């Protein structure tokens, strides 16, 4: 994954994870797997885990501990009301930013053509 991609993802990955959790509750490794399915192929499982710790600390998800046959009990993360509000905010911000950047891109290209 390119350096620029990594930098850009940094600010959005939390929102992306909340968006995936809005579909249904999930284990950490399921989130990573779904990210891969959606084309975010190079994100380390540890990085996803770090963000899950963060959204848990910030009270955006509810956590259920489920005993596991192997290894430690596994956490199931589900989006709560605060998380849903945060996700709404994320999509609003994303739409705003995406439309501004697209607009800028078009303007700059038009000016380039005229010059």
């Amino acid at each position, binding site marked *: 994954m390119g350096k620029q991609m990594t930098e850009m993802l940094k600010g959005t990955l939390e929102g992306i994870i909340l968006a995936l959790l809005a579909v249904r509750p999930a284990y950490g490794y399921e989130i990573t797997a779904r990210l891969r399915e959606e084309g975010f192929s190079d994100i*380390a499982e540890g990085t996803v885990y*770090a963000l899950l710790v963060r959204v848990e600390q910030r009270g955006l998800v509810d956590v259920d501990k489920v005993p596991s046959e192997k290894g430690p009990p596994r956490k199931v993360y589900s989006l709560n009301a605060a998380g849903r509000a945060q996700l709404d905010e994320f999509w609003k911000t994303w739409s705003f930013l995406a439309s501004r950047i697209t607009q800028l891109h078009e303007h700059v290209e038009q000016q380039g053509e005229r010059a």
Partner: protein
Amino acid sequence: MTRWIEKVTGSLEDKRRWRAYNTRKAALPVGYRTAIDGIERYLMRSAAIVKGDVLVQMLEDLIELVEASAADGTPIRDVVGDDPVEFADAFAANYRDSHWIDRERTRLAAAMDEAVQQQGANGEGGAGDER
């Protein structure tokens, strides 16, 4: 309530958790143990955590990830990624002691408020006069 002895020696509870962490670490398969030792070393030096309970919480969260990965047989490279610094920094950010920097941020904002006010007090277009 904190027992007086803990004020001298640090929290006994933190020490108990620290020992439990080390026991869990010793039980990991060798590759995962090497990985967690490397991550732990980096976190200890980069995160600059002073509070004992925050520190052990960080290590407990870390070992939970590594134990689960070992149990699932997730390759270490898939856990830490091509750039382990990326992962370690994202992880450490959750525990960084923010009290002192918060204070400094408040001071920075207050100093700028004062500066803006001083500029305003110079009369209209105060900045322009000196150009």
